């Protein structure tokens, strides 16, 4: 039994309310830095994934897409959108100088898909012309996508029988995609002929989504790859000038608006964490200064009994370390209980791509937060510990007598 192991614990037990308050304060240190950094990293990770999943240089949608649910809200929030234009616009886009490849996509939103009050986004693509969807379909599914086959996003629950029915069209789920952290995680992918069959079925069920376009000759969006040597911005401008009723956006511009949102959210998080740290460090230092002042006489008694100056510092530091370590452990666990189970809720609230780093990384951040908060807590007592060791026991005892 050593004094440094016994006395700090007894001192802490003696004042349970104060100890609890200090532990709670240290818990905020770990909670804020762990939670904050996981959120910032998830946002960055999400942006990367968004960038790679977009896969096109330019996206062109009908002008009305602005009002009927934008392409961005499909991507970011998974809000289904339905907007259509005649295939002739697709052909016009293909004719623009600098367009190397153009892949049409056809969007449909399910009605309550057997389960949910919120419709599911169904995306039809043409395997012949597509270059944005298939690269990541390949990660999970190597086969051909036949008629009636669908691939679902990572955030859809696959029913036991492996089929989903949209507009009376039974579909076979052949694969589930990896998580992207974007709105596409709740989407369903299929080929053009399947989605057109669904569309016809929807018409016969009384859903008239298309009023002025022939469904067989309609597209919702065109994903465009720009030929080498051409500037995406310039080609985007060309499309907007030469193809009426179509709005083209350069992917870089879409990404930079997301990146801007990410920067401001991250900025707020960093600011909050910094504020918590500054406040907590200040309060902890004051608390330990008060504790050491209050115990000045006790420290003097220990000096009289033979404690060295260093021992007194160690006693106070040990007390701070116990408080900050237990606080940090509680804080880090609390953060884990928030960021893991409620990650999806956070991501939904952010309306930004949000993709948690791998578990190992998150655990490493947790361990680092624990360490950092413990050290910070102990350091907040450092000045008091130094002062305690400078006090003159003889004089103090006379004061206290």
């Amino acid at each position, binding site marked *: 039994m050593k004094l440094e192991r016994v006395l700090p614990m007894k001192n802490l037990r003696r004042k349970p309310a104060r100890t609890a308050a200090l532990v709670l304060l240290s818990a905020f240190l770990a909670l804020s830095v762990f939670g904050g950094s996981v959120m910032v990293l998830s946002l960055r990770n999400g942006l990367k994934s968004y960038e790679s999943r977009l896969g096109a240089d330019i996206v062109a949608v009908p002008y009305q897409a602005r009002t009927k649910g934008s392409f961005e809200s499909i991507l970011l929030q*998974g809000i289904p959108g339905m907007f259509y234009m005649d295939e002739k616009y697709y052909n016009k886009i293909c004719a623009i100088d600098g367009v190397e490849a153009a892949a049409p996509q056809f969007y449909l939103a399910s009605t*309550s*898909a*057997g*389960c*949910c*009050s*919120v419709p*599911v986004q169904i995306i039809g693509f043409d395997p012949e012309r597509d270059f944005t969807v298939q690269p990541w379909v390949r990660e999970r599914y190597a086969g051909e996508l036949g008629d009636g086959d669908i691939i679902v996003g*990572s*955030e*859809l*629950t696959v*029913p036991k029988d492996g089929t*989903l029915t949209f507009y009376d069209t039974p579909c076979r789920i052949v694969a589930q995609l990896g998580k992207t952290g974007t709105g596409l*995680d*709740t989407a369903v992918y299929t080929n053009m002929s399947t989605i057109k069959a669904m569309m016809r079925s929807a018409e016969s069920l009384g859903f008239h989504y298309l009023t002025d376009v022939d469904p067989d000759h309609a597209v919702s969006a065109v994903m465009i790859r720009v030929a080498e040597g051409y500037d995406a911005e310039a080609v985007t401008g060309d499309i907007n000038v030469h193809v009426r009723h179509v709005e083209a956006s350069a992917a870089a511009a879409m990404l930079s608006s997301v990146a801007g949102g990410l920067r401001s959210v991250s900025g707020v998080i960093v600011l909050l964490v910094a504020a918590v740290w500054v406040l907590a460090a200040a309060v902890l230092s004051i608390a330990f200064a008060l504790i050491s002042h209050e115990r000045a006489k006790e420290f003097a008694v220990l000096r009289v009994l033979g404690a060295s100056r260093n021992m007194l510092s160690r006693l106070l530091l040990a007390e701070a370390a116990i408080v900050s370590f237990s606080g940090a452990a509680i804080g880090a666990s609390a953060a884990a*209980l928030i960021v893991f*189970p*409620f990650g*999806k*809720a956070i*991501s*939904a609230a952010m309306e930004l791509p949000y993709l948690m780093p791998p578990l190992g990384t998150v655990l490493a951040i947790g361990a680092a937060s624990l360490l950092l908060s413990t050290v910070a807590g102990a350091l907040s007592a450092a000045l008091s510990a130094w002062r305690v060791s400078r006090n003159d026991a003889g004089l103090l005892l006379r004061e206290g007598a």
Partner: protein
Amino acid sequence: MKKMRVGARDILLLLIPALLLAGILSVFQPCSPREDGSWMSCHWAGRATAGAAGAMLALSLVRLFVSKDAKKGLDLALIVLSVLAALLPGRLISLCMMRDMRCHTLTAPCAAVLSGLTALAALVDLLLSGGKGRRHEA
């Protein structure tokens, strides 16, 4: 008769199930009904979880008034009920198909976290109150 002592563990065991019950019924409730007014299965999962939480709360209340040995029995019952409450949304009763819906993002994690904490608190109480009486010192 011994004086009734309400300790930190007793309060936690009351507070957490109460939070779970209140949460499931308010901020963490599952998805809203479909447009035609019909409910999805996650609604019933939420109801069942709330029921389990209510039962947990009732047991925690009873815990305050019974002998030490009966308390241990109730702790065990609380652990079993917590496991049930954690499994109800998603495992025993299916939730919505889209995992970004409320029932997946809020209801199920809330049930898992809070019933996990209840089970933990009950387990700690069971372990600390087990064996030799601990009030002979202090």
